[in-house]
C-alpha cells in the first residue's frame, strides 16, 4: 500500500498579483505559476482587498501606482488586519519612487521589487517571503503546543469516564455493604454480599491500572511497545468515554498481533484517545468507531519508505469539510463549540507521530465519515514485557486452551497473555458457550472463571469431565473461593489462580495443569 504523505507536501503557495495593467499581471502570473505558485489577480486596490478578505493567501505582490486606491493605502489597510508574518506583501514600484519604497517599508511592506521587473530577483524575493512565513508558522505551531498542555483534553475526558465508572462501583460497594449490615445474622447472605463487594474492588483495581497508563509522565518515555496490547488497554478506557450510542470495534489484522514499535506508550494511548474522542464528537447521533491495526509497507509518502504499524481510527460521522481539513492539524483549530475542544487533540497526534518517526493521514468524506491513520515505524525488538520474563519451560507449545470468563476485559487480557505464551485460545463468555465450543473442538485445558450466571466454573468443569475425565482445569477466582462457595463441590485436583494475576502466575498455573500426570509440583512450581 502507499498512503498519501501523512501531511501532504506543502501546498503550492498562493500569490495575489495586484496591478492595474493586465499585461503586467499576465507576465507575473506566468512567471510564478511556472515556478509552482498558484496565482490570483486583482486589477485594483478594491478588488485586492476583497480577495484578501476572502481567500487564503501566502503573499501579495502589490503595485504602488493604481487608479482606484493607491498601493500604499492598500498596504495600510492590509496591515490593519494582517501582520507581516501572517500575510507578506511585496511592493512593486518604479525605480524613481524611492520615497515610496521608504514609506512602504515603514508601513509594513516586507520587501519591494522595482519595475521593470527583474524576474529572477522577483522570484527570489517572493520565495524568501514564503519560506519565512512558513518557518514562522511552524514556530508558532510549536510555541502553541508548548504553551498549552496537550494532555489536558484527553485527561479531562478520561477523568469524566473514570468518575462515571467509579461511581458505579461505589454504588455496588455501598449497596452490598448495606445488605451485609442488614443481614448480620445470615452468614450466607453476608458472604454473598461481601463477595460482590470484593468483585467491585477487583474492577476498581483494573480501572486504576488503566488510568495509570496516563500518569506515567516523563518527557518522553520511549520503549518497545506491542501495539495490540496498547490498543487493548485503550479500548477498555474508551468504552465508558464513548457512551452507549457509539459502538467501538477493535480490528487487528492477523499479521499485526505481534507488531512492536519504539514509542512512548502514554502518548500512543493519548493519540488514540484524542482521535476516538473526535470520532465520537463527529457522531452526535451515535455510530461506530473502528480502531484498526495492520502492518503497512509504505513505498512513498510517510517520511521514509518502510514497514509501519498502521493504527487507524474510523468513524461513521459527518466527515470534515475540505476547508477545515487543511487546518485540522493546526494548534487551536477546532470545529467544536466554544468550551468543547481545545483544538490541541490533532496537533498532539501529529506531533506524536512525527516524534515517533512516522506520520499521520486524514481521509474524509462528507456524510460518510473520516479515517485517521497513524503510522509508526516497526521495531524488530520485542518489549521487555512481563511475558518475556516467563521462562521457556513454562511456555506453551500450541496447546489449545478453552478460556471462559464473563468479564470482557479480563477475557481479553487473559487471551492476549495466553497467546503470547504460545497457546491457542478459544474464548467463551459463559459456561453454555464453553460447552458448545468444547463439544466441537479439541481442547487441551480449560481456564475458567468460577462465578458466572446459569453455569458456574465448577459445574462447567464437572460436566466437561463427564466425557473427558482427564481434562485439566484451572479456575480463576477473584475472591476466597473455598469459603464463599462451600456448597459447590470443588473438583478434585483443581488448580486455582487468584485474580488479579500476573502473566507469570498464569503461565505457571497453566503449565502445572498441563504437566503430565502424576505431576511433580515442586519441579513445576520452580
Amino acid at each position, binding site marked *: 500500500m502507499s498512503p498519501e504523505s501523512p501531511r501532504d507536501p506543502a501546498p503550492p503557495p498562493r500569490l495575489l498579483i495586484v496591478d492595474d495593467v493586465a499585461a503586467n499581471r499576465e507576465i507575473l502570473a506566468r512567471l510564478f505559476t511556472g515556478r509552482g505558485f498558484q496565482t490570483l489577480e486583482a486589477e485594483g486596490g478594491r478588488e485586492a482587498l476583497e480577495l484578501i478578505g476572502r481567500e487564503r493567501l501566502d503573499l501579495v505582490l502589490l503595485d504602488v501606482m493604481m487608479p482606484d486606491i493607491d498601493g500604499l493605502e492598500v498596504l495600510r489597510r492590509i496591515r490593519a488586519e494582517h501582520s507581516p508574518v501572517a500575510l507578506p506583501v511585496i511592493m512593486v514600484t518604479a525605480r524613481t519612487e524611492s520615497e515610496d519604497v521608504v514609506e512602504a517599508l515603514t508601513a509594513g511592506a516586507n520587501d519591494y521589487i522595482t519595475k521593470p521587473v527583474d524576474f529572477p530577483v522577483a522570484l527570489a524575493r517572493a520565495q524568501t517571503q514564503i519560506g519565512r512565513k512558513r518557518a514562522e508558522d511552524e514556530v508558532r505551531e510549536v510555541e502553541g503546543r508548548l504553551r498549552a498542555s496537550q494532555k489536558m483534553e484527553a485527561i479531562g475526558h478520561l477523568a469524566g469516564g473514570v468518575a462515571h465508572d467509579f461511581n458505579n462501583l461505589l454504588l455496588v460497594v455501598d449497596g452490598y455493604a448495606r445488605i451485609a449490615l442488614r443481614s448480620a445474622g445470615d452468614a450466607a447472605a453476608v458472604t454473598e454480599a461481601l463477595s460482590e463487594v470484593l468483585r467491585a474492588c477487583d474492577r476498581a483495581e483494573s480501572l486504576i491500572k488503566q488510568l495509570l497508563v496516563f500518569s506515567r509522565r516523563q518527557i518522553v518515555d520511549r520503549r518497545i511497545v506491542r501495539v495490540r496490547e496498547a490498543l487493548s488497554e485503550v479500548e477498555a478506557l474508551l468504552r465508558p468515554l464513548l457512551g452507549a450510542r457509539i459502538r*467501538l470495534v477493535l480490528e487487528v489484522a492477523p499479521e499485526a498481533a505481534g507488531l512492536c514499535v519504539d514509542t512512548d506508550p502514554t502518548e500512543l494511548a493519548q493519540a488514540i484517545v484524542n482521535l476516538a474522542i473526535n470520532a465520537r464528537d463527529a457522531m452526535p447521533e451515535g455510530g461506530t468507531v473502528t480502531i484498526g491495526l495492520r502492518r503497512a509497507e509504505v513505498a512513498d509518502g510517510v517520511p521514509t519508505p518502510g514497514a509501519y504499524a498502521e493504527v487507524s481510527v474510523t468513524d461513521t460521522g459527518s466527515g470534515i469539510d475540505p476547508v477545515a481539513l487543511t487546518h485540522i492539524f493546526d494548534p487551536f483549530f477546532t470545529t467544536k463549540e466554544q468550551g468543547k475542544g481545545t483544538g490541541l487533540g490533532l496537533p498532539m497526534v501529529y506531533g506524536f507521530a512525527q516524534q515517533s518517526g512516522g506520520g499521520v493521514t486524514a481521509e474524509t468524506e462528507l456524510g460518510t465519515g473520516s479515517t485517521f491513520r497513524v503510522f509508526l515505524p516497526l521495531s524488530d525488538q520485542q518489549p521487555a514485557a512481563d511475558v518475556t520474563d516467563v521462562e521457556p519451560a513454562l511456555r506453551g507449545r500450541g496447546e489449545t486452551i478453552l478460556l471462559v470468563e464473563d468479564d470482557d476485559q479480563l477475557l481479553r487480557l487473559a487471551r492476549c497473555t495466553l497467546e503470547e505464551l504460545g497457546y491457542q485460545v478459544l474464548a467463551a463468555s*459463559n459456561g*453454555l*458457550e464453553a*460447552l458448545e465450543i468444547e463439544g466441537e473442538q479439541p481442547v487441551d485445558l480449560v481456564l475458567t472463571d468460577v462465578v458466572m450466571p*446459569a*453455569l458456574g466454573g465448577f459445574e462447567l468443569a*464437572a*460436566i466437561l469431565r463427564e466425557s473427558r475425565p482427564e481434562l485439566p482445569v484451572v479456575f480463576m477466582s477473584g475472591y476466597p473461593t473455598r469459603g464463599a462457595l462451600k456448597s459447590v463441590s470443588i473438583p478434585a485436583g483443581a488448580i486455582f489462580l487468584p485474580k488479579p494475576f500476573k502473566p507469570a502466575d498464569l503461565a505457571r498455573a497453566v503449565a502445572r495443569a*498441563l504437566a503430565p500426570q502424576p505431576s511433580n509440583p515442586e519441579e513445576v512450581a520452580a
Partner: protein
Amino acid sequence: MTAPAPFVPLKAPSLAELQVLVVDDQANALNLIKDMLKSMGVQSVFTAAEAAGALELLKERQDLVDVVLCDWSMPEMSGLELLREVRKTHKDLPFIMVTGTADPSSVLAAKDGGVSGYIKKPFSSEELRKKMSSVARVKAYRS
C-alpha cells in the same frame, strides 16, 4: 505433555428429555422455533406470547423448564426485562436471547443481567441444536 489423542467430537446428547420455554410475541417466529425444536427431537416445548405468561409458568412449574429461549424485543416487557426478572429467582436457569439486531450496550446489559447466550436471527436449525445440546448436557449433569 502427552501426545494428543485424536479428537472425537462429542456424541450429540439426546434432546428428547429437554423442556424448552419459547417466548416470542410474533406467532410465526414462535411456531418456527417450536417446529425446529420438535424436529430435533425436543418433545416438551412450551410457548408464551409475552413475558408475563413466561413468568407465570416459571413461577407455577419451574420443573417444566430447562431453558428459556426468549425474543429480545417484545412489547410490554422486553426480553431483557424478563431476563432480569427471571434471574431474581432462577440464578441457574439457562436463558438464551434470540435477537435480530442488538446494539453493544444492550448486549452488555444482557450480560450483566446474566444471559447465557445469544442466537442471532436468522439462525439455522444446526445453531439452535448446538445450544440445546449444551443445555442437555447441563440438564443431564444436574439430574
